């Protein structure tokens, strides 16, 4: 399922948009060093981090989208960077576990 399809099906907020790629797996984490060494590309990355470095890390891992969980919204710097780099940033009030279940269920991953 592509990111735009996922955002419609899940009803998650869309903060920024990018290339509409398929979500092939998921990764949950907030420590950026763990993420860049362990997350695989084309994943949905679920996190509660919302600072500008999240955009840099998302670029490095080539994730399909970032999903900010637990009601977290991108701060202004992240919003601008994600928009300029063309990175999908979605948002949900669900906690990370519930959001991961939604990704797994809708995307079949």
């Amino acid at each position: 399922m592509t990111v735009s399809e996922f955002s419609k099906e899940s009803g998650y907020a869309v903060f920024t948009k990018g290339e509409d790629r398929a979500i092939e797996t998921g990764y949950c984490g907030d420590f950026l060093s763990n993420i860049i060494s362990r997350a695989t590309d084309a994943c949905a990355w679920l996190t509660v981090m919302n600072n500008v470095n999240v955009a840099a890390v998302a670029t490095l891992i080539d994730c399909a989208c970032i999903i900010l969980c637990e009601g977290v919204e991108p701060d202004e710097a992240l919003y601008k960077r994600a928009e300029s780099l063309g990175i999908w940033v979605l948002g949900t009030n669900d906690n990370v576990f519930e959001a991961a279940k939604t990704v797994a269920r809708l995307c079949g991953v």
Partner: protein
Amino acid sequence: MGECIRLEYDVDGENFASAGHASESVKRTLKQMGVSPASVRRVAIAMYEGEINMVIHAHGGRAIAEIYPDRIDIYLRDTGPGIADVDLAMRAGYSTATENIRSLGFGAGMGLPNMKKYSDEMKIDTAVGVGTTVFLRIRF
């Protein structure tokens, strides 16, 4: 030794927002040169960790990338506090980062271990009170 493409960047120590610019730029260049995605990823990760270390610990510095047909050599130079115990710093999970840094998602103690993991050669020249140069070589 063949001709190389040399890229040089200032890493701004006061600005977390710009951290990652050098590794993003090198990543783009390697992609355009047709280097394999797996190699590009290793370079980007190792270099990003190095950049972040310079911002967190050393008030910034210079990042130099020399791209050869078969490899990239990266030099990360700073005039920060130096590393007192390199073996300890290399240990996964060891970090001297502050709570403030951790709240930004850094300070997992994986920076140097990740740089070693994703490079073929790594050398640390450091002196307390003088600075640190990290050399990374990654073969494509």
